[in-house]
């Protein structure tokens, strides 16, 4: 499945990265080169193989559902681009 400029436009939108129209063709060529190289995976027989989602052979650990730290708004906000009165300031989300 070849990647064309329209696909790059769609994927860039999904990834929330502004890519200028004039760069889409070049990106499509680049991504096609990488995906064509990746296509060789089709040669591997994976019938009945369980997908490997983790490199750790152990069940996810459980812990008590308790608050360990918190209530430190100043720390949470210390790297924010914009804040007012202990809140993050973001563009209007709901019209």
């Amino acid at each position: 499945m070849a990647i064309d400029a329209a696909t790059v436009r769609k994927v860039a939108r999904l990834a929330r990265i502004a890519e200028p129209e004039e760069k889409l063709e070049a990106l499509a060529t680049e991504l096609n080169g990488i995906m064509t190289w990746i296509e060789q995976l089709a040669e591997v027989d994976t019938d009945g193989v369980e997908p490997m989602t983790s490199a750790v052979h152990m069940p996810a650990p459980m812990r008590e559902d308790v608050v360990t730290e918190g209530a430190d708004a100043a720390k949470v906000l210390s790297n924010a681009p914009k804040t007012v009165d202990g809140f993050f300031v973001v563009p209007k989300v709901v019209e």
Partner: protein
Amino acid sequence: MSSLTSLTLKAALDGLAAKSFSSEEITTAHVAAVEAARDLNAYVLETPEKALEMAKASDARRAKGQAGPLDGAPLGIKDLFCTQGVRSTAGSNILGNFIPTYESTVTANLWRDGAVMLGKLNMDEFAMGSSNETSAFGPVVNPWRSEGGNQKLTPGGSSGGSAAAVAAELCLGATATDTGGSIRQPASFTGTVGIKPTYGRCSRWGVVAFASSLDQAGPIAKTVEDAAILLTSMAGHDPKDSTSLNVETPDFASFVGKSVKGLRIGIPKEYRVDGMPAEIEKLWEQGIAWLREAGCEIVEVSLPHTKYALPAYYIVAPAEASSNLARYDGMRFGLRADGANLTETYENTRAAGFGAEVKRRILIGTYVLSAGYYDAYYLKALKVRRRIADDFDQAFEKVDALLTPTAPSAAFGLGENADDPVAMYLNDIFTVTVNLAGLPGMSIPAGVDAKGLPLGLQLIGKALDEGTLFSLGGAIEKAADFRARPAKWW
């Protein structure tokens, strides 16, 4: 004072213990070396005041007889580790002037044991790269040059700053991380020792995430013993990382120097790739001969799915990265580039903040996870990953460890592979299998090529069997007697 920077970590710790010199003295010597080596671009942030403050505190602890295992030793920290109150950027503009309010577990462990921080080390942006050229701060320059040449060479990546700083004696050792080879390939390119431990040995808490099922921290050091000392401090169970293994951390240094007699070493035939330089082939043969002389039994093994490891990695790693890097939205921390509405602000922020390679990988990751492609690409890659891990399981029924080259070439010129992403990705051909399987892998300097550039050999071990790697690494180090050092030009 320059002799203090030439010490190994072990010799420095012995000297500190014997009160031959103070932490303040050895730290001051390193601060001066760092300042004099800015042409290498190894440090993205120097923290001399903090270093001297930590050194004085260390000297005070030692005077009271309370010195820890690393007390007073000045180290460099890869800029992927969050350090409380000290700018941490992951080599990216999108983190801008991010100042963590917390300390990564790995660095906290080093400070607990008394180490001193010299500063933050340069790296490929978000650890995505094999040459350090994707860093927002510009590439690190390898302290090594070809004999008689003055071309600027890459120190490898992504931990290029860590490797260059250790090779140029700008710290006694450094932290690094490895998602596909980012500790071992730079170690090979700079004549240093690097180990990626078993997945889960070192906590990922506070380490900026790239691909969470592959990322693992480890040290880059001057010797095998130094790497063992550092890893012993860095590793350990951490409840804040749900993939951190709840196992004891052995004293890894106690394995260095142990006899390797009777160990069975596998030589995977699939690692003999087309176009591999004859010198690397020869070095590999030499490594086999060294281990045979040390009493190891050499066994040819097969890892049939090796050639599929890199393409599988270039599905799995970008998929995880596209998800992990979704957090950089310009709202809560880091850069914000305003747009006409919320979506435009997201898009402008990420367009301005991420570099080309990071964008490329986010796009690939988003593509392979998008509707209609998930099964064909992502699920397929996870199944191939299982095949690769099974290959290792079968090989380790017959052998105790594997010996391979670390990288398919010596250090190359900055800019040489910049136009072809796939050519750059092939740097990790021998290292990436280990990340997919979650196994430990170590690179040891073993020789130089015809141009006088260092080359490394890689040892791959069973899960949680770093001890055997330290014994074998020590045996190779002793046999190789690698004494070449970069001639100082910076």
